[in-house]
């Protein structure tokens, strides 16, 4: 392949869009198509028929009549149809309508006076100079403005135009409606002068408006619409050919009729029929017309449908393609592999090939492979001669002869063998670690095999998952795969700057069992373990010498740690005691490694697990490199695998059996809480239950009940969890973080707990009850889905049913979530894909507009960072302290002087950290120098490289965790009574830049004096909450006798809301009404008698006091001060309220922040909100990714959505926009403007099949020409 591939000698630099004029169509055409038939009886194409040989040929061995090439090399040639009458192109109707409405029907000028036009022209020039481009809105404004009854130029009276979909125009003159035929429209459009068109945003050179009316229809070459021969030998034509047949038929009939001088009515009917066929030929889904159908009733797929949507040309064939040299099969695990290996079945290895150049040194080997042929394993599939001729060995009779003939310079496409590089991928490819390079290991059987530690990045399991394998063919591709994509180079995830690859499941269990204090191993066992893990050093001194030598697991584990490694951390099994006993920990949870020896603590998830930052594994990679990291992980995995094999590990049903005492305790606990619920029911029935603010009594009861039952399960689970010892396998797994949680243990052993649907107890089903086994209205735990049993004891029928209901919701939830997060990911990728780091460190889009001046504000690549930090200063100083002997600590002055020297090379934060750490550590001068030097070095090493696709990485890092988020929208924020949208829906809301968040909430801080006490805070809260008449009235009703609206006030409510009668009097004013206030009633009499019902509505919603939009307020204490949280948001007005601290008060309504505090504050708000959501979900995402999204969203000074109405819709590339969404309108728009696609972004280059200008694709050869000013200065020198 590599040799036959022609060298790239031309590059597409630009793509221009425009309309074809009739002349051009005729010029491009090789044949006029006049006959509606395709083939004659012999199956030969009819001349000037739709399959005319001049358009190209479909037969494999025939030659094209135009270019003389065979089917493979002939590009195809257009023909044309001369239409009998002009026809409107359906996709341009809207534009035609706009043009007709804004120009004179007589002279074609814009319906605006000359001065105005001149002004608009200068404005366009000015805006273009200022912004570089002219925004669409400006052109739209011209269109909207140009309206009038009389032409300012020729004085012609203008008539109203009526446009009815799909293609008819009527002019409403005094005589009545008159139809405008396409030819009349065409004449009018022809009259519009070029200069005027430019004001509409047209480029008259590439798109004259009259060309939007077709006189000649181009006929695409046959390759665009190939006919297929069915098995029965019947030819079946393409949808487009069918449509063209219709067009030609009607066209021909129309022509004949016109020549024969048929009545106008018939001509008109036929014209309309022709219009219909041409319309459906372009777009068979246009509104207002029935779609053209195939004989079978299936709607035809015509031009628009071919391009549009997921299965359309853009997304299905241009942005992504099917490839050769790939394989797909089921995956299965193999712990004996290296983490960067992939097991490839023999069958696959004999089908895929790797090109290898024959040289003097490998010629013998290559001969052997060639003579083995394609079917004997180490063999070859093709031989490529230096002249480019390929020999397929399958068809060669005497392979030995070919083998003899090969010489250096030949290329042998040999079978895959061990050590070849391959690219391994599992869909959905949510982040870059979903595609990694592995080394091939040819193995028997039929599945791909991978090491278990690489399951997390692929998100793979072995329940039937399939994966894809690709073999890079060119040297360049192989090298890139080796240098950039290898598994060990992907261990550190750019999402959070920690290892995403690591030990999982049984490896962790095994590590715990292996390294705990009680594990002692005999010499035989030790040898077996060490042999399995490839250790060839000497045995350490045994821990126990008599009666026989015994080694601890910790000792053996230590053998694999780097010799100068020091680290301490708390293991996953750490109980979080209030006072840590450190090395004396009774659980052995305090891990201490000194000089490469595991002194104390057990190894579990926190130390070697996947997705664990700041673990031992993470530290090894950071300090010793990825290669050492890979070896370490490989070896300990082999070791641990061997250990579990020897020891064995099971979890059985009887291990879930609780002690009778615990069983009893659990029953008592559950009983207690059920009694509590019974008491609540009683209270609810009597009406003595306290209502929660903002909730009805029933809702309050449900919240209370749910709360009690949640406690019941939690406590029962806790009892069970505590009843089991650390010898229990389940407990081992949950505590070490290998699998499961204590909740799972609790559900299995103690009590499954409340089942829920939509976050509530189960109440649906029958009237007032969930199942007919219960009395209507029964609100006891059992009747509403509380499962008392445990999985171990088994569920009864009713419980089982409820459990199934809850279970189904879980399934539905997952399905919905994957869809939503998938779409969010697609939008994020599309919006950010073209961002890259330039050589000057800025982040720019494809047109060179700056998005960030320094990536992530400090220029650090999250993948190279230490869990987000540029340099781990504390650890660095610690390490230096150990290694460098200190005599006399350096003084503060010296440290500061040294820091001053490197200030410009570091970020302010790092300087600050260094200062405090160095002062604390009391290092000597030498050590201080070294620490500062290393910090600078490490910082430089952590910087992003030019060309890095920060946009794509950022989008992936936010999109990928989306799948792991909950869909449960509501969550309590601080206060129990307040619900906030969180999780995936909230994240989508943020990137969508929704105008109004679904739960607007403000956090109002108060001035010093008012934040001290609840009373004072409540005082302010009363000023803030919007109080309407409805809130203080007993009732508002109409008094028909006196023709008045009456408000009956409720003094208690007035007091609660803090409304004084005076305030009320001041507030109650209505236009054209008389207001009389008499103690508890207010009478409003409209001056004019009329509809008082409307007035009632107005009165009830009338604001008496407070801030409009604030529905509820809650005063709560946070961090020692009283703050107000509100339901509803109105930032600008709240900031004006007295005693509110305006400097800290915020809202989650991002648009409001943009309006009142500016775009920079909005940027901060977007970051804060998005980070808050991710954090609440426990997802670790580097702030730089969120920052990039926020910067991109606010780059134009207003908040732009991530999607087609925002960033994606404003991309500079036509192709990229068309490929994302709304394909056709984007192309139409580009056409009339004569837009050209500069092909500087990602999607557009993928579409035209060129290297993308990102990463290694950015590297190019430039000629540096002397800039004039430089040249002058040079001369001066």
């Amino acid at each position, binding site marked *: 392949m590599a040799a036959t591939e022609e060298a790239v000698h031309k590059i597409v630099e630009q793509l221009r869009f425009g309309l074809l004029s009739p002349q051009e169509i005729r010029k491009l055409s090789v044949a006029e198509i006049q006959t509606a038939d395709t083939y004659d009886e012999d199956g030969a194409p009819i001349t000037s028929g739709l399959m005319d040989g001049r358009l190209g040929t479909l037969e494999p061995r025939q030659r094209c009549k135009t270019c003389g090439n065979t089917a493979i090399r002939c590009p195809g040639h257009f023909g044309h149809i001369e239409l009998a009458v002009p026809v409107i192109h359906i996709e341009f109707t809207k534009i035609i309508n706009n043009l007709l409405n804004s120009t004179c029907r007589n002279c074609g000028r814009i319906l605006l006076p000359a001065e105005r036009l001149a002004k608009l022209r200068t404005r366009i020039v000015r805006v273009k100079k200022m*912004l570089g481009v002219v925004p669409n809105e400006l052109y739209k404004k011209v269109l909207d403005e140009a309206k009038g009854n009389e032409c300012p130029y020729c004085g012609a009276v203008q008539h109203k135009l009526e446009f009815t979909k799909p293609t008819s125009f009527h002019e409403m003159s005094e005589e009545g409606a008159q139809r405008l035929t396409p030819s009349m429209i065409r004449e009018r459009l022809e009259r519009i002068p070029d200069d005027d068109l430019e004001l509409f945003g047209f480029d008259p050179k590439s798109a004259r408006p009259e060309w939007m009316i077709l006189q000649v229809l181009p006929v695409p070459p046959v390759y665009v619409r190939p006919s297929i021969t069915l098995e029965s030998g019947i030819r079946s034509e393409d949808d487009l050919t069918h449509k063209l047949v219709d067009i030609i038929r009607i066209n021909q009939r129309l022509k004949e009729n016109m020549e024969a001088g048929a009545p106008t009515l018939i001509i008109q009917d036929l014209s309309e029929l022709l219009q219909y066929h041409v319309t459906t030929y372009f777009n068979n889904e246009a509104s207002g017309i029935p779609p053209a159908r195939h004989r079978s009733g299936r709607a035809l797929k015509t031009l628009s449908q071919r391009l549009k949507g997921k299965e359309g040309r853009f997304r299905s064939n241009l942005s992504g393609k099917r490839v050769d040299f790939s394989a797909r099969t089921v995956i299965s695990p193999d712990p004996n592999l290296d983490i960067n290996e992939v097991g490839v079945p023999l069958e696959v290895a004999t089908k895929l090939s790797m090109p290898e150049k024959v040289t003097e040194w490998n010629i013998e080997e290559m001969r052997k492979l060639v003579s083995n042929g394609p079917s004997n394993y180490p063999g070859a599939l093709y031989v490529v001669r230096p002249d480019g001729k390929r020999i397929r060995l399958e068809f060669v009779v005497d392979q030995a002869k070919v083998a003899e003939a090969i010489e250096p310079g030949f290329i042998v496409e040999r079978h895959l063998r061990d050590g070849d590089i391959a690219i391994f991928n599992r869909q959905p490819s949510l982040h870059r670690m979903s595609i990694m390079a592995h080394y091939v290991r040819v193995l028997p059987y039929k599945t791909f095999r991978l090491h278990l530690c690489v399951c997390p990045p692929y998100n793979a399991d072995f329940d039937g998952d399939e994966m894809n394998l690709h073999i890079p063919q060119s040297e360049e591709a192989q090298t890139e795969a080796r240098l950039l994509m290898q598994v060990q180079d992907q261990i550190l995830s750019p999402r959070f700057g920690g290892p995403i690859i690591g030990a999982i499941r049984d490896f962790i269990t095994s590590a715990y069992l292996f390294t705990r204090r009680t594990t002692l191993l005999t010499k035989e066992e030790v040898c077996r373990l060490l042999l399995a893990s490839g250790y060839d050093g000497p045995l350490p001194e045994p821990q126990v010498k008599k009666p026989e030598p015994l080694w601890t697991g910790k000792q053996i584990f230590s053998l694999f740690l780097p010799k100068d490694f020091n680290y301490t951390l708390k293991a996953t099994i750490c109980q979080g005691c209030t006072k840590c006993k450190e090395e004396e920990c009774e659980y052995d949870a305090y891990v201490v490694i000194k000089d490469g020896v595991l002194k104390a603590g057990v190894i579990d998830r926190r130390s070697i697990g996947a997705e664990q930052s700041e673990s031992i594994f993470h530290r090894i990679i950071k300090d010793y490199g990825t290669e050492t990291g890979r070896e370490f992980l490989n070896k300990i995995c082999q070791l641990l695998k061997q250990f579990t094999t020897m020891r064995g590990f099971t979890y059985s049903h009887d291990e879930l059996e609780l002690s009778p005492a615990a069983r009893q305790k659990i029953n008592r606990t559950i009983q207690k809480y059920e009694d509590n619920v019974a008491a609540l029911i009683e209270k609810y029935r009597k009406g003595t239950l306290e209502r929660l603010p903002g909730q009805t009594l029933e809702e309050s009861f449900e919240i209370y009940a749910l709360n009690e039952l949640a406690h019941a399960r939690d406590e029962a689970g806790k009892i069970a969890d505590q009843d089991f010892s650390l010898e229990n396998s389940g407990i081992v797994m949950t505590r070490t973080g290998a699998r499961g949680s204590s909740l799972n243990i609790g559900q299995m052993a103690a009590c499954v707990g409340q089942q829920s649907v939509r976050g509530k107890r189960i109440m649906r089903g029958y009237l007032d009850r969930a199942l007919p086994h219960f009395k209507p209205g029964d609100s006891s735990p059992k009747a509403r889905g509380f499962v008392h049993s445990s999985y171990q004891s088994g569920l009864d029928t009713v419980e089982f049913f409820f459990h199934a209901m809850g279970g189904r919701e879980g399934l539905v939830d997952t399905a919905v979530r994957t869809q939503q997060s998938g779409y969010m990911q697609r939008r994020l990728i599309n919006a950010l894909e073209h961002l890259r780091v330039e050589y000057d460190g*800025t982040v720019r889009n494809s047109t060179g507009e700056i998005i960030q*001046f*320094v990536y992530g*504000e400090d220029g650090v690549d999250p993948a190279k960072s230490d869990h987000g930090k540029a340099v781990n200063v504390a650890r660095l100083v610690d390490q230096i302290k150990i290694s460098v002997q200190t005599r006399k600590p350096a003084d503060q002055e010296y440290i500061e002087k040294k820091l001053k020297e490197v200030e410009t090379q570091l970020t302010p934060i790092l300087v600050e950290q260094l200062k405090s750490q160095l002062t604390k550590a009391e290092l000597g001068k030498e050590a201080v120098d070294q620490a500062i030097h290393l910090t600078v070095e490490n910082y430089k090493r952590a910087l992003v490289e030019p060309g890095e696709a920060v946009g794509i990485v950022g989008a992936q890092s936010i999109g990928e965790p989306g799948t792991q988020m909950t869909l449960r929208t509501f969550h309590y924020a601080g206060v129990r009574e307040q619900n906030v949208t969180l999780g995936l829906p909230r994240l989508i809301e943020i990137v969508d830049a929704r105008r109004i968040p679904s739960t607007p909430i403000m956090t109002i801080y108060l001035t010093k004096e008012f934040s001290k006490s609840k009373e004072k805070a409540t005082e302010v809260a009363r000023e803030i909450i919007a109080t309407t008449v409805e809130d203080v009235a007993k009732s508002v009703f109409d008094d028909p006798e006196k023709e008045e609206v009456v408000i009956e006030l409720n003094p208690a409510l007035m007091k609660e809301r803090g409304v004084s009668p005076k305030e009320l009097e001041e507030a109650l004013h209505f236009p054209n009404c008389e207001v009389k206030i008499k103690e508890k009633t207010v009478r409003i009499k409209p001056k004019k008698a009329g509809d008082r019902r409307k007035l009632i509505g107005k009165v009830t919603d009338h604001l008496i006091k407070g801030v409009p939009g604030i529905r509820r307020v809650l005063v709560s204490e946070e961090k020692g001060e009283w703050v107000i949280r509100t339901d509803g948001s109105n930032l600008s007005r709240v900031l004006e309220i007295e005693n509110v601290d305006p400097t800290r008060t915020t809202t989650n309504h991002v648009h409001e922040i943009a309006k009142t505090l*500016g775009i*920079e504050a909005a940027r*901060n708000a977007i970051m804060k909100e998005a980070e808050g959501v991710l954090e609440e979900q426990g997802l670790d995402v580097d702030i730089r990714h969120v920052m990039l999204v926020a910067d991109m969203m606010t780059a134009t*000074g*207003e908040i732009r959505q991530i999607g087609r109405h925002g960033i994606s819709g404003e991309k500079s590339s036509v192709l990229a926009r068309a490929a994302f969404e709304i394909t056709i309108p984007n192309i139409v728009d580009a056409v009339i403007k004569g837009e050209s696609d500069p092909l500087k972004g990602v999607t557009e280059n993928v579409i035209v099949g060129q290297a993308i200008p990102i990463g290694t694709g950015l590297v190019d050869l430039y000629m540096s020409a002397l800039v004039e000013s430089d040249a002058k200065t040079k001369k001066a020198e």
Partner: protein
Amino acid sequence: MPKKESTIEEKKAEVLMHLRGYKKIDQKRLPDGITTYTTKTKTGDIIIYCIPGQGTIGVQYINKLKKVMKDENLERGIIITSGRYTQAAKSAARKRGIELIPRMFPAFNLFEHVMVPKHEIISDEERQMILQKYKVQPYQLPYIHVSDPAVKAVGAKPGDIVKITRNSQTAGKYFAYRYVVEG
């Protein structure tokens, strides 16, 4: 309506003068409740008109201010109010060199808000330096609208570049630049 304490609009005026570095020369309260300030700036004196209440501001106010400006021989004027402006008022103001402060404009120094970083207009030299450093046309920088409260606060005009000093979570301190555009 002689009230002792200052109205919201007056507060806004004070904040605005403080932020833009205008020097107050004179403060008057007219009988119809309107407060006027005369201020001294580097580019000439400005009169600020504070109209209290949330009523809609029509052209008549613009004309009134224009008359005052003419009388006092001043080039520029500013109107501050808590109400809306009519379309006619907006276009009239543009013609007459009167700046309208939107009702959303906060009555406190918004740069003191935790979410708002410092904005400042940069000098011509610095502007040249920045454009040179990044080798860009001004329109290739991120934008900020003139209507942005922070821009209003520093009084930047379309075509200016503002420098923003952010408190960065990753770097500690970070400078961003935005190009002021219409809208």
